């Protein structure tokens, strides 16, 4: 019983040819695995390693180094809230406190009911003129307020955001372009829709035996 689909593993095997040296394919391959599974468990990492003809320990070493690889399931909508200095000076900590209450989780390891939401505090996301800000569903949201957070949560739950001032508030306020699925252009294909998963669906939340990453320790 394999963690990743045969179709995906076949796709991973084609990645190394795109790089001057095959090892560079490891992160794009882990991306594909995470996209299909929702997170990376030891089985998935072993299967990626086998497909790339690398040592499983090596692949796990890479996966545990980078914060965008999740070693435990996250919510379907995962909030990456910046709490570095520029955002903290403009109220990021209050945003986090509000978010925790709004999605009813105790901390960054927790996933809300029905697996819908989770969050983590992240380091600077490089949009400091819009602080406080965050990333959600592959998009940045700016000038965060408690109200914007509530609207986004309502939107993701399938409710219409509340009306304000006579017109419907755009979820998250003034972000740039409408959310466009990030297609995988040539040549690195890290982001794609899984053929095996309905949009947004994630696998059941189990296998939480993988410890969360602790870097630099």
């Amino acid at each position: 019983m394999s963690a990743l689909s045969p179709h995906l593993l076949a796709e991973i095997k084609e990645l190394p040819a795109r790089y001057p040296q095959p090892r560079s394919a490891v992160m794009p391959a882990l991306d594909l695995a995470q996209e299909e599974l929702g997170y990376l468990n030891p089985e998935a990492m072993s299967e990626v390693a086998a497909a790339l003809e690398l040592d499983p320990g090596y692949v796990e070493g890479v996966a545990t180094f980078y914060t965008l690889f999740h070693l435990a399931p996250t919510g379907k909508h995962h909030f990456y809230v910046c709490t570095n200095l520029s955002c903290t000076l403009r109220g990021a900590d209050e945003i986090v406190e509000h978010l925790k209450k709004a999605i009813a989780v105790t901390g960054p390891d927790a996933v809300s009911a029905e697996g819908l939401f989770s969050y983590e505090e992240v380091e600077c996301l490089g949009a400091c003129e819009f602080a406080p800000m965050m990333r959600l569903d592959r998009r940045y949201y700016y000038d965060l307020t408690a109200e914007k957070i509530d609207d986004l949560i309502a939107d993701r739950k399938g409710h219409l955001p509340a009306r304000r001032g006579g017109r419907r508030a755009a979820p998250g306020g003034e972000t740039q372009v409408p959310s466009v699925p990030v297609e995988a252009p040539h040549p690195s294909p890290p982001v794609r829709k899984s053929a095996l998963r309905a949009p947004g669906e994630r696998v059941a939340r189990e296998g939480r035996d993988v410890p969360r990453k602790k870097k630099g320790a």
Partner: protein
Amino acid sequence: MPELRGSFGDAPNHLLTRWFGTPDLHRLGVYESKAGGYSALRKALLEMAPADITSEVKTSGLRGRGGAGFATGTKWSFINRDAPGPKYVVINADESEPGTSKDRYILENSPHLLVEGILIAAYAVGANQAWVYIRGEYDEPYRMLSEAIEEARAKGYLGPKPMGKDYPLDIRLYRGHGAYICGEETALLESLEGKRAQPRSRPPFPAVKGAWGRPTLLNNVETLATVPWIINNGGAAYAKFGTDKSPGTRLLSVSGNVRKPGVYEVELGQSFRHVIMELAGGVTEGRSLKVFWPGGSSAPVLPASMLDTKTDMEALAAARSMGGSGGVIVMDDSHCIVRAAHRLLKFYAHESCGKCTPCRVGGDWAVRTYDRILANEGSQTELDTLQRVSDGLQNGRCLCGLGDSAGWVIDSTLRHFREEYEDHALRHECNVGGPPAASGRHLPRDRDEAASA
């Protein structure tokens, strides 16, 4: 159209941002017809010899905008153009220095400006392939840059014969996955090669042995986005801007407690008073400036009394700081410097790759010391420990600058705000912005700590 907070439009010092704000500037057609785009690439490929391009960049005096400020033309000349085998240009788009958003500003407003700069650089140093290492969280910039590359490919500006020139050029993208250390050039190369991003020892330098063991030119996004202007107008024209040793303009991302945060293009040599008080509209209403980080969180802090410091690298060095990444973080007098330093040390401790002992151990040690001080358990011992850890982190004891940066945060905040540290460590009080409970504007205590208390 992305919302613009910062410089755009016509102004004498808008070399990079002149056309920002033009509707659909990210489309090749608009970039060409409105902004005169790709004329520099045409000139470079069809009218100039590679050595002349490098020489023009040398004349401009342009210095790297990623943080170190190394002379760009000199860096280009380190690549042996005639050496056999593949050579690469690698673009550092892993912008992650706290307080820095200028590369995103370029990528979202004018991705073709970067594409054009990359192609010119690749041709100049004899590379046929360029790799843009772009941070994984930059979904929108990634999409826009991908589209720009495909537009340029469709138009025949890159590919087997760019603009008819028999010199194949290609640009590829590689996404980062969340690691500050990848902004360091050799860590970036390790990551590009599919490894844990731990810096390499130098020599060999990337110019000799870089990506996949081949000669590699590494430049920052802003640096290469400046190149088309230099080719169009000449290096001498560029050198007329700025100061003798720091010529030109650069983008400063101003964030924190200012009324108009934004990415502003500034002629080097202008003062931070101009940047913070005029361009960014001054400090939050009813508050006054306490301190600012002039070049990202890694640049040693400057107190309000040094607001007239100039933005060029020499002036900043004389003020015992640096230009760094151009991220200007402004903090007003309602915030506590000890808590701010604590927050930054947590960042450096988290982002340490663990390869060098001073950085791996020092960061966590400093965080624990700050924890004790902020829990009102401090004494002279803690202050001495901070100074000792800070000294141990600095002065090239590590393979890259991450450890030094952590040390500078401690050292510079201690140097300029000794009394505030002593209030916390020796007197167990915080005297910032009125009573803490009433102001409500302190950097909150660490939540874990608050929860367990």
